């Protein structure tokens, strides 16, 4: 690795590791945790939406499944939320297959429409099912029985837990970028017909990308449930959850390793600020802003900020 590149990584690593030590008060620790959570869910979306170019606008369905399972298992059997992680992944992957199997042999729009429809379908079902808490939702352990209940007083243990997961996900993405699978995904995104003519198993690759993406989105949901100890149909499956995942990835740079982290680092503080500035009406304004940003990205720089940065740098060098 070239020296300048390596320095960049070390610096980033230092910032991420050291953040809670420097900004240890509750507000900033929580902020950092939320940024990391956003980065995880956006990076998960990025696998199928950014790299493979299959735009899911209902990814909340996987996040929500991951959030509900641990709390559900706790409610029924009093199990540690940790058991819910693989359960959430299993359910999410099953939903991924339900959506992907029929739609990946059709044009891209069908997949996108299906993701919204299934997310809504599940949101309504869950919201009306008393077993799953209906519209009130589910709650996790209030007082921890041990460390494995994942209930901590301060944000800092969560911060490092989230960081570990993010690092794992990014490492996996990094390895994938350099593998045959990664090249195939990018080829599918760049030209499906040509990819097919070169022997790329298009449908299978899309499915794998979606399954992987669903699994990690589910983990993000489970991590959310672990920290907040609470989930309801809107915070789990609502369209705004999906919007956040998409926007964070797209703003930073869809299809780029660090795009989602960049997007999360910008949007999470932004959202918290606008919410506190405008109070209750903040929700409306934040999403008006989001809508505008998304349209601008789509219109002028679909590759996001990282692409914009590359372009500026390229022009200066030229």
């Amino acid at each position, binding site marked *: 690795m070239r020296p300048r590149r390596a320095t960049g990584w070390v610096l980033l690593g230092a910032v991420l590791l050291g953040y809670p030590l420097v900004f240890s008060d509750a507000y900033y620790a929580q902020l950092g945790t939320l940024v990391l959570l956003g980065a995880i869910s956006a990076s998960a979306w990025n696998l199928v939406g950014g790299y493979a170019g299959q735009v899911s606008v209902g990814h909340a369905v996987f996040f929500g499944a991951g959030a509900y399972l641990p709390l559900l298992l706790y409610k029924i059997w009093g199990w540690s939320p940790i058991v819910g992680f693989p359960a959430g992944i299993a359910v999410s992957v099953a939903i991924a297959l339900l959506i992907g199997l029929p739609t990946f042999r059709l044009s891209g729009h069908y997949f996108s429409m299906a993701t919204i429809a299934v997310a809504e379908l599940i949101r309504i079902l869950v919201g009306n099912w008393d077993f799953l808490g209906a519209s009130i939702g589910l709650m996790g352990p209030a007082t921890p029985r041990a460390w494995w209940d994942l209930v901590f007083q301060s944000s800092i243990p969560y911060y490092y837990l989230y960081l570990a997961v993010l690092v794992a996900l990014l490492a996996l993405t990094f390895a994938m970028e350099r593998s045959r699978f990664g090249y*195939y995904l990018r080829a599918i995104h760049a030209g499906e017909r040509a990819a097919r003519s070169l022997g790329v198993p298009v449908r299978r690759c899309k499915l794998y990308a979606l399954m992987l993406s669903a699994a990690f989105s589910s983990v993000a949901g489970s991590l959310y449930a672990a920290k907040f100890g609470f989930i309801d149909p809107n915070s789990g499956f609502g369209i705004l959850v999906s919007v956040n995942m998409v926007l964070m990835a797209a703003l930073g740079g869809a299809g780029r390793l660090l795009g989602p982290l960049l997007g999360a680092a910008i949007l999470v503080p932004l959202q918290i600020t606008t919410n506190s500035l405008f109070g209750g009406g903040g929700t409306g304004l934040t999403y008006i802003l989001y809508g505008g940003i998304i349209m601008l990205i789509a219109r002028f720089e679909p590759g996001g900020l990282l692409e914009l940065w590359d372009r500026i740098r390229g022009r200066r060098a030229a």
Partner: protein
Amino acid sequence: MLLSVRGLGMSFDGFAAVSDANLEIAERAIIGLIGPNGAGKSTFFNCLAGDLMPTSGKVLFDDADITHASPEEHARLGIGRTFQVPATFQELTILENVMVGAFLRHSGEREARAEAERVLELTGLAGLAGKKAGTLGTPGRKRLEIARVMATRPRLVLLDEALAGLTATEVHQAIELVRAIHRTGVTLVIVEHVMEVILTLAERIVVFNQGRVIAHGAPSEVVNDPAVIDAYLGRSHARRAATGAGPSRGRA
């Protein structure tokens, strides 16, 4: 015979774009496919490539029935193709484009990269490896497509108007490239409009008109075949060719 086409037909909603096409292609041959616009050669070509499923007839590759095989299967069996409008992966670099092809035969990144570099040498693109495919002009993209398909180690390559829209110098370079890849041992089926190219490169020419094969043979034979002249230029010229009469004066 590497490729055998028997009684191939392709109909769309009752309109027969191709009827009863037969063709035998031996290993290492260079076959040219020509015909006026709308003659059915593109449809025939796409049936061979697996993009279209013929409504009748059979296609055999190395004695295996590939009539209904998908494009992915075609590639795996060793049939590659280029596209009339170049379909390179614009956001990927030239090297990466070719690597996608190479990954069909090599599962590791290092081997795929090595193979891709080798192919870039062969096709004269080595100096541009790190550039994005989107920066290339049309001739470069056509060249890249050829490189990319060669990385899949095909035994048969279907070239779809690989030389259309090129200047005289570019055509000359392209012909050299096609000869270079032929030397590596591939069989070629070339669809082309540019006559001189076909006549220079092809050992045998198949002529389509209105969905049927109307002539088949060595370039010199085909060029003088009345049916072919009729298809391209009209009946009067065909008559003149048949009787050996000189150019007419005045009305046809």
